[in-house]
């Protein structure tokens, strides 16, 4: 290398170092744009979480106590957690499966086809359509005096509610929850499914594989992380859902978010104060366990993922 060439090489790190110094200052200014959001998250998410968690360990007078946390094993609280868990697991599992099947069906249409674009657009709206509006939609359609309930009874003589009115009880949450769970799965899973290359199925076939060989050895393993991620999102979505249940469930606080409300507005539940914080802690623990399971799966697949 010529002397001028080596001089140029030697200068390079200093130049790039200088540019780097300038770059970090330059990066800082646009970074300031994040400040309002960071403050928002701090004030309305981090601080309340810490408060919720810590209040669980103190009584009203501020003294440390295990009472609230101990109440988590109270039969009533345990059954509430049990309810929250099964409704969330069930609607997440059904939502993930049905959503995945819809994605698979959509795959046979081109990404620019009107049907696929419409389903994706509708999904993005419906995935956010929870809460009181959704509860009202169900009450108006299949409530005791709902349009469909009356129609079925008058025209076909079919009673939607021969016995109990299940819509206003725990099982009644399944249909409304699926209403937003399935579209959410379609939104999150479609990109992963579209990422399956047609050449993989063709390579499988030319190598003597059947459709089942492909799914067992390639399709399912490749999609598993995205499917598990979607399932986890659906679980969290349903586990933390409050308004839909609050508007539908007529009596009692059968799921944890409702129990937290009760604990917040009535200070004498089970004779313990600050139970809401302990309940929130319980929810966070469950989410952490699931997230750990998910990251274990991620770690298994990380070796072949970019």
């Amino acid at each position: 290398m010529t002397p001028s060439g080596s001089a140029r090489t030697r200068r390079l790190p200093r130049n790039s170092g200088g540019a780097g110094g300038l770059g970090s200052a330059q990066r800082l200014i646009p970074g300031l744009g994040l400040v309002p959001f960071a403050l928002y998250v701090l004030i309305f998410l981090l601080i309340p979480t810490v408060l919720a968690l810590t209040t669980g360990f103190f009584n009203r007078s501020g003294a440390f106590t295990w009472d609230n946390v101990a109440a988590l094993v109270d039969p009533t609280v345990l059954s509430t957690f049990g309810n929250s868990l099964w409704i969330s697991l069930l609607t997440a599992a059904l939502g993930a499966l049905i959503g995945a099947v819809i994605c698979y069906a959509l795959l046979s249409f081109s990404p620019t086809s009107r049907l696929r674009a419409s389903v994706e657009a509708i999904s993005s709206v419906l995935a956010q359509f929870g809460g009181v509006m959704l509860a009202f939609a169900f009450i108006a359609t299949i409530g005791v005096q709902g349009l469909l309930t009356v129609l079925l009874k008058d025209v076909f003589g079919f009673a939607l509610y021969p016995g109990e009115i299940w819509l206003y009880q725990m099982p009644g949450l399944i249909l409304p929850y699926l209403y937003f769970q399935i579209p959410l799965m379609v939104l999150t899973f479609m990109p992963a499914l579209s990422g399956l290359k047609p050449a993989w199925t063709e390579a499988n076939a030319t190598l003597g594989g059947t459709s089942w060989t492909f799914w067992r050895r390639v399709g399912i393993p490749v999609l598993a992380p995205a499917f598990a991620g979607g399932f986890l999102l659906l679980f969290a979505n349903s586990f933390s859902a409050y308004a839909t249940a609050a508007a539908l469930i007529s009596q009692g606080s059968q799921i944890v978010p409702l129990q937290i409300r009760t604990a917040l507005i009535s200070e004498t539940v089970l004779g313990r104060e600050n139970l809401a914080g302990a309940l929130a802690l319980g929810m966070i623990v469950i989410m952490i366990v699931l997230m750990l399971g998910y990251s274990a799966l991620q770690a298994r697949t990380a070796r072949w993922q970019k």
Partner: protein
Amino acid sequence: MSDPTPTTQRSGVSVRFRAVTKEYGAQRALNGLDLDIQPGEFVALLGPSGCGKTTALRSLAGLETVTSGELLIDGEDVTRVPVNRRDLGMVFQSYSLFPNLNVIENVEFGLRTRKVPAAERTARAQEMLDRVGLGDFAERFAHQLSGGQQQRVALARALVTRPRVLLLDEPLSALDAKVRTQLRDEIRRIQLDLGITTVFVTHDQEEALAVADRIAVMNSGKIDQIGTPEELYRRPETGFVANFIGQSTLLTALVHEGRIALLGREIDLTDPLPEGALARVRVRPENLALESFEHGEGEPGAVVTTSFLGSLRRTTVHLDSGLSIVVQHSAEDTPEVESRVRVRLLQDVVTAHVD
């Protein structure tokens, strides 16, 4: 370079397309395609995009159902045999390695579907990886390999099952120039080693000329001409083939007493043409010479562009007759743009067509 080993050597089988037609709605991708491929032969299907070459290959693979006609492999009619029972190896343009399986698992894939015992499977996969020069990459995943390496693995995966025919669907198109040439030559070496009948689809004439025993130039779903690279290059039978293979300039001249006047010379014809007919002749750059304007022979013109190609140079000359012509000459000669030159034909005999 590895020697052919008896364990994987297999004499090739014949492949036959008989009046194969493939329609997509109103569009005809294959239009009564007839093609006979000899056992162990390496045939390139060459043509512009949309000529039907990929459809022909995919039909042979069973990835497309033909509308009519017959496909025969080793004399057996496979037209209705599903793709996974045709016993063919295929390499795709897009890297088609399974991302969740490492290199050796990818190569073993076809052996697993054939229920080959584990020990034999691994041994055969490893042997094939050695053959493509990736013996030390068995544990890697696709994303840890370059494009060229991925295609080598895909080649090993396609060959390890000892398929009857190897199908290559533009396997080099996504690679950069240097890797492309390297892998091209390696594919040919391995194909000769194994003696496997191979069908290679490409739009790159240089690729086809370099590796194929015979080239089938396709146009509108049919074969325009099939022949050895030399035959196609030296004696193109149609204007399409002449235009597609190599660079050439179309010249026209009136036939007079069995000869034609080209670039200031009287030239003989290989095949006689009627008196007074307008003969069309394709002249290749290497059959022309650039001469000095003052002292040389040939038709005068002015230099438009000149490009350096290593050992030689190609210069475009705008002839005074109004035609532009490309001349290939030694890189030592460096004509200046806009300078006056003469272009001379080096051939004494040409093949002319009347359209």
